[in-house]
């Protein structure tokens, strides 16, 4: 994929000559193509030289301070920070920088990523003290002007670290799935007739449907940090998405309000707005939680 960085092409020739000579002299376990130990060392050294050259030739570099942990590797059992110097290029994102470090310095550097365009929600990270998507965060935006000298990258707080920047998402998924996050109305029209939905109603749920399950909100929430059973902003937003959808009947709305009104539901929210601040899709999470509180009150008043 393109990261906007070009690798220097020099040294290629000397390397392939060296490899060719060693290959001619060496033995091989897997046919003619398999390199011997000397050739492997030479190839790996050449790769390292190319990385060093790219850093030396860059107009600007950025220093990544990256959290490292692996329960299975003795030297990483105790969490530590590693530094990687990465050549900066205009438009470079935090994810680009991490990938460069992984591909040129340390292939064991581990983080989730996939789409590179803020829709898969894989790469929510704690960058310079704030929950952000790595792919959507321009490195240049982390400094007041120009290129930041250093960027600190940690896994999402308030989640168990699996390895390096990868956290266990199971608890987040459990909370999401506990609010019955699926359309339930069975009373749909026949054949090719769609359910009607007003533009206003679609507009009302629009922002809530943008959630990409990245977990940034949950990680930023003090209440969720203190109460493991708290549904959390993302799950409540999911409940909002269905409770406010006029296509589901009133009985279902009431059922949904019962779910979010439980002990660890909407009433735990103390409107600190941290979730709203970090949401990479700009979902007004706190407002949605407040709206559900109001609906719950209205519903309860009905029975008096």
């Amino acid at each position, binding site marked *: 994929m*393109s990261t906007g960085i070009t690798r220097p092409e020099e040294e290629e020739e000397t390397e392939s000559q060296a490899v060719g000579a060693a290959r001619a002299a060496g033995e091989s376990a897997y046919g003619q193509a398999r390199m011997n130990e000397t050739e492997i060392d030479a190839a790996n050294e050449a790769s390292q030289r190319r990385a060093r050259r790219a850093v030396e030739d860059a107009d600007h570099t950025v220093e990544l301070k990256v959290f490292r942990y692996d329960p*299975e590797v003795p030297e990483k059992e105790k969490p530590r920070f590693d530094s990687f110097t990465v050549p900066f290029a205009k438009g470079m994102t935090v994810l680009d920088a991490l990938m460069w470090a992984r591909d040129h310095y340390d292939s064991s550097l581990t983080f989730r990523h*996939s789409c*590179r365009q803020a829709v898969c929600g894989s790469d929510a990270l704690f960058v310079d003290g704030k929950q952000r998507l790595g792919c959507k965060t321009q490195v240049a935006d982390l400094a007041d002007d120009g290129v930041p000298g250093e960027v600190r990258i940690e896994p999402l707080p308030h989640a168990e670290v699996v*390895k390096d920047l990868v956290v266990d*998402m199971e608890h987040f998924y459990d909370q999401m799935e506990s609010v019955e996050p699926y359309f*339930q109305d069975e009373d749909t029209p026949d054949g090719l007739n*769609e359910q009607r939905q007003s533009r206003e109603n679609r507009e009302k749920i629009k922002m809530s449907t943008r959630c990409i399950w990245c977990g940034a909100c949950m990680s930023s929430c003090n209440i969720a940090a203190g109460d493991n059973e708290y549904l959390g902003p993302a799950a409540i937003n999911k409940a909002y998405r269905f409770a406010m959808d006029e296509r589901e009947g009133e009985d279902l709305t009431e059922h949904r309000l019962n779910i979010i009104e439980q002990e660890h539901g909407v009433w735990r929210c103390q409107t600190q707005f941290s979730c709203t601040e970090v949401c990479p899709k700009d979902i007004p999470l706190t407002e949605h939680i407040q709206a559900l509180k109001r609906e719950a009150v209205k519903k309860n008043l009905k029975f008096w």
Partner: protein
Amino acid sequence: MTNNATMHEHDVIVVGGGGAGLRAAIAAEEEGADVAIVTKLHPVRSHTGAAEGGINAALRDGDDPTDHAYDTMKGSDYLGDAPAIETLCETSPEETIQLEHWGMPFSREEDGRVSQRPFGGLSFPRTTYAGAETGHHLLHTMYEQVVKRGVTVYDEFYVMDLAVTDHPDPEERECHGCIAYNIKSGDLVGFEADGVILATGGDGQAFDHTTNAVANTGDGLAMAYRAGVPVEDPEFVQFHPTTLPSTGVLISEGVRGEGGILYNSEGERFLFERGYANNDGELASRDVVARAELTEVNEGRGVNDEYVDLDMRHLGEERIVDRLENILHLAEDFEGVDGLEEPMPVKPGQHYHMGGIETDENGETCVSGLYAAGECACVSVHGSNRLGGNALPELIVFGARAGYDAAGRDLGEARIDTGPSARSETETDLDTPVSPGALDGAEPDAVADGGALATDAEAVVEDALERQRERVETLLERDGINHAEIRSDLQDAMTQFVNVFREKEGLQQALEAIRDCRERYQNVAVADPSRTFNTDLLHTIETRNLIDVAETITLGALARDEFRGAHWRKEHQERKDDEWLKHTMVSWNGGDPDIFYTDVILEGEEKTYEPKVRSY
């Protein structure tokens, strides 16, 4: 099995949790099967979520599935198979409305019905959409239904290979399951099943500049290929005309559908003014627009010698925010451009693979029990060029059919024949500078390359499991080089030589570069010693798949000496219907690729599609 924890059994296994995989799983569950999804990402991370434009479906008065079929056949440049195209167009309306019934938040008209808009190559505005984030909503809506139904999901399990019998003839082989690597724990797991549905999506990572995700590495296609299933029409790769230059992020065709205009550096609306598409202009088919843009750049009329401008400012803020809001965010976040204030820079980027695992219209391959659906498959509905808005209906229509068929529902006999027995002729004189396929003395591949003929299903899975265990151990324990440079060189070669414009010499150079990557790959090792979340191992295995995928694309491109749809050849500037109204098939053939051809089916239910000159 010595350790029960490493074996699972289900009726149906779906590999991949994107649109096609989720739809297949729902269908299989509806049919009463015990179905499980095995996916290397959590389902909501799948790249279906990045699809923007919409779902083509003939829903309205004045539109008809036969018109949709005609548009699709024309768009395919007469390389789509009529039974597949007609199935797609007839079934898309009910599948699209099914999504609405599952609560998908489509954009709406004043009367509350779902909105549709014009798209390239369509004779009716039938692209049903949800903002410019249709794929995101489709993916999440279907995942919600999977949760509702309690379908088992093994997420972050990477399927490394299929468990297929070793019969010499691929058409006698049976698929009994697959082998997966539990990414979090590092355990290898065997899955035994009566049916395996590959829904692994695209393979854009074979190219350098792509709209595809990092995870789109063609795993399913490569596994099926090595298991003996032909790869159909691999040379047909779609380059989307509007991707952001620096990252390859997609700018939806919806922008042009709503009225966006393309300009060159001289301020000309070149599609009209330079005569590329005098009738449809910006809404010509994607291949036409992509070539027009690159021609402009090559002839010195590109902006900054690299791209063209896509302007939507005249649509007005209200309309843009209502229908294309996501585009504003993408242009801002990934190119630093405010689409309300200035034109957006765009250039062609790899977007979609029309070719893929050969299947019939029920999703089944020539290997019994092995299915494929979605982008990794080739039914073929898209032929040599896919129309915008036809990928999402393919996911739901053929995902569902594969799911039903694998779970035992009788969908009737397929009209499309598959496998080597459907061969009409064999390629005998392809001028390749190096031999493609397996290297002499290379490590053996998992399937059909020796080993005892396993008899029962469990033994087949156990054998495959053992082979993958050895493969992982070898990669973890030996010394070697890292795969990343090999992958990057492969991507560079593909983007340089197998792009929008192709010529013989360049394609041959690509084959040499691919061969070089294959040789260097013999020396890869995984430096990360950990069993926990070892993405080094995962990416190393993916790179092998990319090498196989790239080779099939390039072989097909070299063989087809004509210009059809997305496949342009410098030396051959015309469509040659007398010679080339046929599908390319590349078969692994135990490591010695066999290239052959099968007839295109232009006979539909009620009429035969006559190839016509394709102009827009």
